[in-house]
């Protein structure tokens, strides 16, 4: 069960779950239209038969920023009902995601911090595929404005 977004009760190790996302040629094409990123990496199988330095992807791959969008969606869906604000997200891509994969973002509370004017929660985030491989990882920062600061 996912942890409720309450600054007072949150503790390191608490988890946030995101919904599964089924990746298909159609979902990748839709992301092209939504992001205006029509890089042939995401569109052109013939192009993707070639090598990229030492890497060969073998076919089209999902936009790395699709991972980013899914993590951001998970964080805002968790934070907004509690009046918390998604302030930062840093990610790096570890493995390509391909049509047929099912990916799912998740978060783990890492630390809490109170500053002069607000309260912050740091979250380790990751996206895993259906084989349990981590395809993207990073860190997020959420602000929990203090009730007194109103």
């Amino acid at each position, binding site marked *: 069960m996912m942890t409720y977004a309450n600054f007072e009760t949150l503790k390191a190790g608490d988890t946030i779950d995101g919904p599964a996302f089924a990746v298909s040629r159609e979902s990748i094409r839709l992301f092209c239209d939504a992001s*205006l990123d029509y890089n042939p*990496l995401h569109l052109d199988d013939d192009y993707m038969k070639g090598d990229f*330095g030492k890497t060969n992807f073998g076919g089209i791959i999902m936009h790395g920023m*699709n991972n980013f*969008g899914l993590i*951001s969606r998970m964080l805002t869906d968790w934070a907004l009902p509690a009046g918390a604000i998604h*302030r930062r997200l840093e990610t790096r891509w570890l493995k390509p995601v391909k049509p047929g994969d099912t990916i799912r973002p998740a978060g783990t509370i890492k630390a809490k911090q109170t500053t002069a004017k607000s309260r912050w929660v740091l979250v380790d985030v990751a996206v895993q595929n259906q084989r349990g491989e981590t395809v993207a990882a990073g860190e997020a920062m959420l602000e929990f404005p203090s009730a007194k600061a109103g």
Partner: protein
Amino acid sequence: MAQAESSAATPFETDFWKDAKLRKVWDDIVPGEPRKTLPYLLTQDAIALYCRAVGETNPLYLDEAAAKAGPYGGLIAPPAIHILLMFACTPADDWMRSPGTVNAGQSWSYNIPARPGDTITLQARALDKFIKRERLFVVHDNVFFNQHGDVICSGRGQTIRPM
């Protein structure tokens, strides 16, 4: 798509090969030099399309009546709308569109939400470039503003350049 309403005069070119020869390669990119950018009118249609692509269902982005009663007093865009803005606010010869550009990681900070009807502007540049394990990297930094001059979000990323 709502591109007809975009403040950019020409329709978005979806064939990234077409202007490939006009774009800077790694050697041409000067860290510190501003990138050419274009103002972009963010429409509710563009926000809704982004939401559909990543499965966003929050009424703050999609339901005007619910959003009006919410904390922002009206519709907003999801924070990660900068994914769209990066391409919407740059011209066809921008090097971010070079076929084979591989995103190696990004970090973004969010100040205030973008809203439908905002005219978004971008200040962007390459900040650094380097070579690592025979790969050519460029670090880019970007700040998006609304029509009032307020910062919406700022971000930094690394791409591996095509060779």
